[in-house]
């Protein structure tokens, strides 16, 4: 190997390591900040109690309302998005021709929707709510978040389905299966790990978004009890807590952020453990 080629190899390898270090460093920094500022304020009462009146002014009370609210809203929104995304991607990949223009258009639209900021979804949903006289509520928040995460979920799943070898479908059709049977019994199984990853990504995005729920889900100090009443969410709790002028409430904001991060980590790790069980038969 000439000296030039060796230097080239070293230089680009160095760049790659640097890029990895920057990304990792940023992540570590964020986590460290949250821990450093939030840990002192984190207590059992904070995650086990709903806010007492005036908690934004520094009074007693926790964020249980937001924890439960976020989890429920995230789960329901992900569920709704899944009900829309799965049929959509199966239609695109199993029923339409490979070079269908319609599929191309749908993919393009989903990519555009993916890039629209969540505040726009919030504003759009709010407009609809004003027209139909729907108050800020769990239902409105759920549907807005579902809309926000559909492009993410559908496009991620779409990429997974597109990677499935054409011959696998052929093998199933050869045995006399219909498209639906091939989709449900063969393609779905093969794509399951990817589908779960897509669901997880969407869930993480949905549970972490503040702007989309600001106008649509509202906020409340009580636990969720009706789909037509407002619901508290963690990102908004963090937003409000950090926005107060009181240092002790701001510290709680960091603690809330820590709780949200831990929740996401736990759900992500848990579902990865679970997917291991379903991937036994997947062809690699």
């Amino acid at each position, binding site marked *: 190997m000439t000296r030039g080629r060796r230097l080239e190899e070293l230089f680009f390898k160095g760049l790659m390591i640097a890029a990895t270090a920057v990304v990792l460093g940023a992540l570590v920094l964020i986590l460290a900040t949250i821990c450093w500022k939030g840990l002192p304020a984190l207590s059992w009462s904070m995650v086990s109690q709903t806010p007492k009146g005036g908690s934004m002014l520094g009074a007693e009370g926790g964020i249980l309302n937001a924890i439960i609210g976020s989890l429920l809203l995230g789960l329901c929104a992900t569920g709704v998005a899944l009900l829309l995304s799965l049929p959509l991607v199966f239609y695109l990949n199993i029923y339409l*021709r*490979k*070079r269908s223009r319609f599929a191309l258009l749908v993919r393009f639209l989903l990519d555009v929707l993916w890039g629209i900021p969540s505040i726009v979804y919030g504003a759009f949903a709010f407009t609809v709510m004003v027209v139909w006289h729907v108050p800020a509520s769990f239902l409105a928040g759920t549907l807005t978040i579902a809309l926000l995460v559909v492009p993410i979920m559908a496009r991620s799943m779409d990429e997974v389905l597109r990677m499935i*070898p*054409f*011959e*696998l*479908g*052929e*093998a*199933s*059709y*050869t*045995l*006399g*299966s*219909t498209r639906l*049977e091939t989709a449900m*019994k*063969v393609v779905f*199984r*093969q794509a399951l790990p990817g589908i779960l990853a897509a669901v997880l990504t969407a869930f993480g995005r949905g549970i972490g978004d503040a702007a989309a729920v600001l106008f649509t889900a509202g906020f409340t100090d009580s636990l969720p009890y009706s789909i037509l009443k407002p619901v508290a969410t963690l990102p908004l709790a963090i937003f409000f807590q950090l926005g107060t002028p009181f240092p002790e409430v701001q510290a709680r904001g960091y603690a809330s952020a820590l709780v949200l991060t831990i929740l996401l980590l736990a759900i992500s790790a848990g579902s990865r453990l679970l997917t291991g069980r379903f991937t*036994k*038969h*997947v*062809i*690699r």
Partner: protein
Amino acid sequence: MEPRPHISVQNLSLWYGSHQVLKDISLDIPDKRITAIIGPSGCGKTTLLKSFNRLIDLQDEVRVSGQILVDGEDIYAPGVDVMALRKKMGLLSQRPQVLPMSIYDNVAYGPRLHGTRDKKKLDEIVEHYLREASLWKEVKDRLHAPGTRLSIGQQQRLCLARGLAVEPEVILGDEPTSALDPVSAVRIEKKFLELKSQYTIVFVTHILRQAKRIADYVVFVYYGQLIEHGPAEEVLNNPKDPKTQAYISGQFIEDEEEAEEA
């Protein structure tokens, strides 16, 4: 005595978009015999094979003219039950495509599609066809292990068992041994010889020696055209057409066949 034709191709032409892949092909595939389709790569052999079970329907923008009669019925006529047709024609692909499920479920997949639900019946079917494909002894203790754990040669036999389990009349093979090691390849060839008393077998190959070893009839396709077809000895030993002669003497495929056999 000439056996009756099982598949009868009449003036078949086929286009992918504006590209014509098959040009006015007419031939009869005899019942309960082994027919080999030979010819250079990319000249329409696989397309011809896949037009027999309408698997080419899955491709974009396919246009077909002419007729293919299976048991006297035109399979491209409107209203044909494509699922039933495909059930009648097992296909063994170039690389074994195991379904993402257990060995047992791979074999039971077809029968389940076609309505067999009874556990005991399915057990019998799975055992029977795994034996038929000479795989039973190797897998009987791990029927519920993933099919992908098997070696490539075993996977191809699993695919054969899976194909036979839907009780086809015809076995189509698309270079069914090309991904296999020599020992596994010979096993598949022997299997074909055993199976030809019950099934009509049509396979694509570009290994001439393989055609010589097992085929009763040989069909030579060259750039979408049917050049010559007839009993194996005639076509392989005394080809009439100069193109067939050139092909068989190895003039346009030397490198390719060497690569295949290596």
